[in-house]
């Protein structure tokens, strides 16, 4: 069952671009804004198809968030596009007051999240965005794992009423989510049934978790594998049920330990199903320049790290 059919390889940002175009075709109220990164965000196709519904903002992200909030007044569904750092930390107060507290139906779409941006270094590799966005009351936070899931998520959030933070990235990663799989906000994807350890992964770490699970199963360790694409609201039920069954949990994400998926799963388990847990995440550090592969290795976000964490957490079972 861990033999997911890999149908190709592409970047998740291209899934966003394709999803945005499709959402625009389905709903004339979908509009898009970009802060001088049309090519990087793959928003070209939408811009060409719907030039009157596309707004170039220039290098002015704070204004972009406000204009997006305003466009909702009159029934538009705005999608903003820039890098994850400039979509969150740079404009936190604009999102907080003009979008979240003002209950505006804005979709904040953020590319180049995490370390896999690579060579540009730590100024562009945000590892705190999930934490910041999750703290905002009413904000939905989604981190899809491949091209197909990102495309489906993009179309799904267009139909959802409320502010959303959608986080995706730059590197080409295997496409393994079935193209026809429906995307349900807040519903975990139970990828594989197992009994010895639960692995909960999000974003680019999902494929690495699949590879780790294959390796662990080959070693006789049975893995319950869960893809959490919606980090907020979290699928508490899926997490608690799996933890109750396996008694050991590993989380894997391209984000800081503090404020990320691991933190949130820990909070759920501590309250509902106390269970030993190991986090595969960045440990209180900024990133740096390097190739995506080098960085994922250096910061411990590889399959090997997930395997190691799984064995360590199994050893802690009571």
């Amino acid at each position, binding site marked *: 069952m861990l033999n997911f059919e890999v149908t190709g390889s592409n970047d998740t940002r291209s899934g966003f671009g394709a999803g945005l175009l499709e959402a625009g075709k389905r709903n004339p109220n979908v*509009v898009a804004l970009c802060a001088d990164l049309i090519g990087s965000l793959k928003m070209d196709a939408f811009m060409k198809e719907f030039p*009157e*519904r596309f*707004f170039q*903002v*220039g290098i*002015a992200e*704070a*204004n*972009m*968030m*406000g*204009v*997006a*909030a*305003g*466009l*909702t*007044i*009159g*029934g*538009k569904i*705005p999608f903003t596009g820039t890098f994850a750092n400039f979509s969150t930390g740079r404009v936190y*107060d*604009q999102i*907080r*007051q*003009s979008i979240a*507290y*003002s*209950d*505006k139906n804005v979709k904040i779409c953020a590319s180049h999240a995490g370390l896999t941006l690579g060579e540009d270094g730590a100024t562009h590799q945000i590892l705190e965005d999930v934490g910041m966005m999750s703290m905002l009351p009413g904000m939905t936070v989604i981190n899809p794992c491949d091209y197909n899931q990102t495309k489906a998520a993009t179309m799904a959030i267009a139909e959802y009423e409320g502010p959303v933070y959608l986080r995706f990235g730059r590197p080409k990663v295997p496409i393994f989510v079935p193209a026809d799989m429906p995307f349900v906000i807040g519903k975990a994807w139970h990828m594989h049934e197992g009994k010895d350890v639960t692995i909960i992964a999000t974003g680019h770490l999902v494929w690495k978790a699949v590879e780790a699970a294959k390796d662990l199963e080959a070693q006789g360790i049975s893995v319950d594998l869960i893809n959490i694409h919606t980090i907020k609201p979290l699928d508490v039920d899926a997490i608690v049920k799996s933890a109750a069954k396996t008694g050991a949990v590993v989380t894997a994400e391209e984000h800081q330990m503090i404020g990320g998926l691991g933190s949130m799963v820990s909070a759920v388990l501590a309250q509902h199903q106390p269970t030993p847990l190991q986090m595969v995440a960045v440990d209180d550090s900024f990133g740096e320049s390097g190739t995506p592969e080098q960085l994922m290795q250096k910061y411990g976000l590889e399959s090997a790290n997930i395997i190691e964490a799984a064995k360590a957490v199994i050893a802690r079972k009571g």
Partner: protein
Amino acid sequence: MKSTEELNQIAHQVRRDIVRMVHAVNSGHPGGSLGCTDFFVALYFHVMKHQSQPFEMDGHQEDLFFLSNGHISPVWYSVLARAGYFPVNELATFRKLNTRLQGHPTTHEGLPGIRMASGSLGQGMSVAIGAAQAKKLNGDKQLVYTLHGDGEIQEGQIWEAAMYAAHHKVDNLISTIDVNGQQIDGPTEKVMSLGNLRAKWEAFGWNVLEMDGNVMQNVIDSMAQAKALTGKGQPIMILMTTSMGKGVDFM
């Protein structure tokens, strides 16, 4: 539309409301509220086409107003109540627990008339621009109005918005700056000089007017002049001179 004399009478009532509201809780910002009273009364009782009942967030076929310097909420709340958006007796709940009349305006408690939260400064122009562009997409010919404090325009986002509005020819937007020359730490010229405001806004591509915000007839005439300038490819800025605390002799 009301006569200038009727508008002045409403302004008297609104000033009484402001003082009562702020006095009742010993907090709030009466100075800027009193200074902008004539502007608000003119806007809601003479200039804008708007609907108080039922209040509709999208405001299709209505003129929209956005208050960017949210701390002068008392004047806005009073004018909204007097214009029929909610009961006048609700003004007595200002800044009290469980009120819809929060210290700074918000949509979050569902107060009719409010379309965005403001308080953290510099954000309202961007939101108003978005609403103005949505009107254009919807083929809605009505206008969008904003008000800003003069100290507020020290925020960088204002200038991002100024550049954007001119570039995108947002010519269904009439913004006003309350030039009262004061901010928390002292006169604006001492705290952070604003320089030549007319030259600054003109350089950013805006059509700039000036008015005396404490002379009702001047407000009405200037707003009519501003309206006549819409639809010509440029956003419009009104530099409005006011006195903080206008109408209360010891303020």
